């Protein structure tokens, strides 16, 4: 479904701030995989997602999505196959626009936009049905400006927008990191539910090891620009947070102990 081959990415090349963020990454996702990605700060998780989405381009290597080489496609062109939810709840929606306007923008992802009306009557009914599934009461607030919603509501809406047109790949970039624990778990449950319903292929970056183990059928761990651990199926289900910490410590040669608190 998704193949990353020999991906390299360096930021600020030829400066004192030069940083190799992805070092020869190979990753293959099968259709229907729900992969969680963990790793410390600067391990390259978000960069990997951004390369897939086209925010940045790799220095080397190829990205193939469903048989199509998208390595050099501009972000807005490859968007037709991708659903994305960001860490910052402000980033996935247009705050000055109404809930229904945001949904209508997302509903046209991958379609030609012309001089027809931005929202039609039939769509509104669809949006009401979809919003009901979020169970946040948003279905009665179609013309509310998104800027008035809470972070959790905005993330839930973004999730809905990302999957309104079924994407080939759903990219969740720490999409619950900015939410309080209760809201975060609600948004995670919602993500799980939508992924299961539409049988989506998904990549979810998270800082939370428990979540990484709990959700998805496969887990990859990144450290220092490389994938250091890739586990799926039954083996993944048997994982414990302590196993992951051990892996981290081994990979980092002990220096990782300080970060233990943060990651647990």
């Amino acid at each position: 479904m998704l193949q990353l081959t020999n991906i390299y990415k360096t930021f600020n090349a030829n400066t004192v701030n030069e940083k190799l963020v992805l070092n020869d990454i190979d990753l293959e996702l099968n259709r229907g995989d729900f992969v969680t990605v963990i790793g410390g700060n600067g391990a390259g998780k978000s960069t990997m997602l951004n390369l897939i989405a086209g925010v940045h381009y790799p220095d080397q290597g190829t990205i193939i999505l469903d048989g199509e080489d998208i390595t050099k496609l501009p972000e807005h062109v490859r968007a037709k196959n991708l659903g994305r939810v960001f860490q910052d709840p402000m980033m996935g929606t247009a705050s000055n626009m109404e809930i229904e306007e945001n949904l209508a923008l997302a509903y046209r992802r991958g379609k030609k936009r012309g001089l027809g009306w931005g929202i039609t009557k039939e769509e509104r009914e669809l949006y009401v049905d979809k919003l009901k599934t979020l169970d946040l009461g948003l279905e009665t607030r179609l013309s509310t400006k998104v800027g008035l919603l809470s972070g959790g509501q905005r993330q839930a809406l973004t999730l809905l927008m990302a999957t309104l047109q079924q994407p080939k790949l759903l990219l969740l970039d720490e999409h619950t990191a900015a939410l309080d624990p209760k809201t975060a778990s609600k948004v995670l449950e919602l993500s799980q539910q939508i992924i299961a319903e539409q049988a989506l292929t998904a990549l979810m970056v998270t800082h939370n090891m428990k979540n990484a183990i709990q959700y998805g059928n496969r887990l990859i761990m990144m450290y220092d620009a490389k994938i250091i651990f890739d586990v799926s199926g039954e083996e993944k289900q048997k994982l414990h947070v302590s196993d992951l910490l051990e892996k981290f410590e081994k990979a980092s040669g002990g220096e990782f102990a300080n970060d233990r608190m943060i990651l647990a």
Partner: protein
Amino acid sequence: MNIILALFGAASQGLTWAILALGVYITFRILDFPDMTCEGSFAMGGSVSAALMVNLNLDPFVTLIVATLAGMLAGLITGFLHTKLKIPAILSGILTMVALYSINLRIMGQANTSLIGMNTIISFVKNILPTAQQLGIRDSVLQTGVTMFVGFIFTAVMIIVLYWFFGTEIGCSIRATGNNSAMMRAQGVNTDGMKTFGLVISNGLIALSGALVTQSQGYADVGMGVGAIVIGLASIVIGEVLFSHVKNFAHKLIAIVIGSIIYRAIIAVVLQIGLNSNDLKLLTAIVVAVALSVPVLRKNKGLVRKEVA
């Protein structure tokens, strides 16, 4: 009596300049793009319209269309500089604006062009009506009335067109691009294209306004665009401050038009008081600064109160 006549004139001027304010609104507010091109494209609209009428004897209506297209081209160039060559927004506009100064001189072949004795859309409408004598009013009053009528028709049509356009799929995409361009790219929209599109429409409107102003005042001047951006902003912020509760897009546009008329009224009153017309730019800048600071001052006041409590 003088002041009433002055306010009558202000209303007619406000309506011809209102389309400029609508154009500035598209870039400044909808696209969040501080577009300085406006000063050049406003003068360009006037220059093109005047030059075509005087040199080629073209129909005044046709010159309005050509002037609008010329303004759109100016917007396209700014869009190209910004999106393709990655020049910062404000500088892209300034570059086009400066370049247009020379181009406008080329278009007219001189620094200003008089339309005395030429047929303009104002004289066209005036000729349909009975003469001032028959109506028993002064000719200048009739002239002002006709200008007001023409300005009203053009502004009304533009508001209807803009209201429709920004409700379409492309229009919604432009609005969303100004609000959150990262999100729009994630939704598959070419945000560079949308920004350029917005600049094209905005500068087309601004040039149309320049052409209308030229035809109503009877001359084009290469310097007529100086301060246009501040005048446009003044109209917008006056409209926004007075009608801050307005939510509907069409109402917002109408608020800007009213803002434009009020701005002209303020100027008229100040001139009646005896201020020199050379002081107008300073005055305009102060009006904009004050109007822009109103929301900030309100907020600060609120904060202070909270702290005390």
